[in-house]
């Protein structure tokens, strides 16, 4: 790709409305020219117009192909998807807050607990035998085990929370998904829509959760040894683990959404 085509793409993205207007003008000029010629050939204005429209064929499809030729389609579509989902999220505060808090709590608690368990269960074992004997570590170990159990529970709860929220989301949007499919969205598009929404919420949740976890682990700092309260590996691993879990929790509702029959969905209220 050379510089001039990059510039053209940039122009296509930034001056979208201007290009849209030009595309309209170009097509309109063609139609009017055709109508003029038809009238010169002896048609009535109404017939001339009808014949010109018929000869032109599917104008919207031609326009779409012209837009595609400029090569900004996917990027522009993604931008539109993002603004749309942000608008929807801003419109339903309560829903957004519940989802983000569920995720943040799940992730925050998990990160904090796993940091702690990691410090005690895993790293503290890298000791010589003497040290092991010298240290009476049964008590912290017991705590660690308990924490690990809690962490597992928290993970499970977070998963159920995400699953419930995503399933609810799919149900409330059944009608909209039906409209999208009737207008030509494929099962893949719908799947991407639902999973994409879930993952956006997950990312917000992860960010808040990580912030909360950093605060929380500072409190537990006294209980940790051999590992820092803000061990980056733990944080990254937990974030990834929960994102993966969130993906799985979105997967089932998304698959269900992709299987929606548009005919049924359109009548669904």
């Amino acid at each position: 790709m050379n510089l001039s085509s990059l510039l053209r793409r940039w122009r296509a993205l930034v001056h979208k409305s201007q290009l849209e207007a030009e595309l309209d003008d170009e097509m309109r000029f063609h139609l009017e020219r055709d109508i003029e010629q038809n009238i010169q050939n002896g048609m009535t204005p109404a017939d001339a117009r009808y014949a010109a429209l018929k000869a032109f064929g599917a104008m919207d499809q031609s326009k779409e192909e012209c837009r595609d030729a400029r090569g900004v389609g996917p990027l522009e579509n993604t931008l539109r998807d993002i603004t749309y989902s942000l608008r929807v999220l801003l419109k339903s505060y309560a829903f957004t807050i519940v989802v983000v808090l569920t995720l943040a709590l799940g992730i925050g608690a998990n990160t904090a607990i796993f940091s702690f368990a990691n410090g005690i269960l895993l790293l503290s074992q890298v000791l010589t035998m003497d040290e092991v004997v010298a240290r009476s570590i049964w008590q912290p170990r017991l705590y660690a085990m308990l924490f690990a159990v809690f962490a597992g529970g928290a993970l499970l709860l977070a998963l159920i929370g995400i699953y419930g929220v995503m399933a609810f989301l799919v149900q409330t949007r059944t009608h909209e998904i039906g409209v999208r499919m009737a207008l030509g969205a494929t099962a893949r598009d719908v799947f991407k829509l639902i999973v994409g929404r879930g993952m956006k919420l997950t990312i917000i949740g992860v960010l808040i959760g990580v912030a909360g976890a950093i605060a929380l682990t500072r409190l537990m700092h006294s209980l940790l040894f051999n590992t820092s309260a803000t061990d980056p590996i733990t944080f990254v691993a937990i974030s990834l683990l929960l994102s993966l879990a969130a993906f799985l929790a979105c997967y089932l509702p998304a698959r269900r959404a992709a299987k929606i029959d548009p005919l049924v969905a359109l009548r669904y209220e």
Partner: protein
Amino acid sequence: MTSKQTADLFKQGTLELLILRLLSSTSLNGWDIMQRIQLTSGDVLSVTPGALYPALHRLEARGLISATWRQSDNNRKAKFYGLTARGRKQLETQRKEWERFSAAVELILRDA
């Protein structure tokens, strides 16, 4: 690749060659290009707007042609396309390819 896809690709390539050739002597708007293809080919070839405009925009996106808005002969503003330097080069290559191709077909038709 199925035979239908090959036919479509072939047609698309031919249309591009015809557009480049028509624009090599003067700049034209979409409607003029359609008329000229039909008239010059003695009504044998015709192109629909649905094929022509996407092809024009593709050529423009590839930098082979460039567009300006100016008055047309019916006193309305129209988008006129003209050949760029790269377009001129592309026309030469495609033209040679086409001549080689049609000469080969011709040979087989005559002598086989």
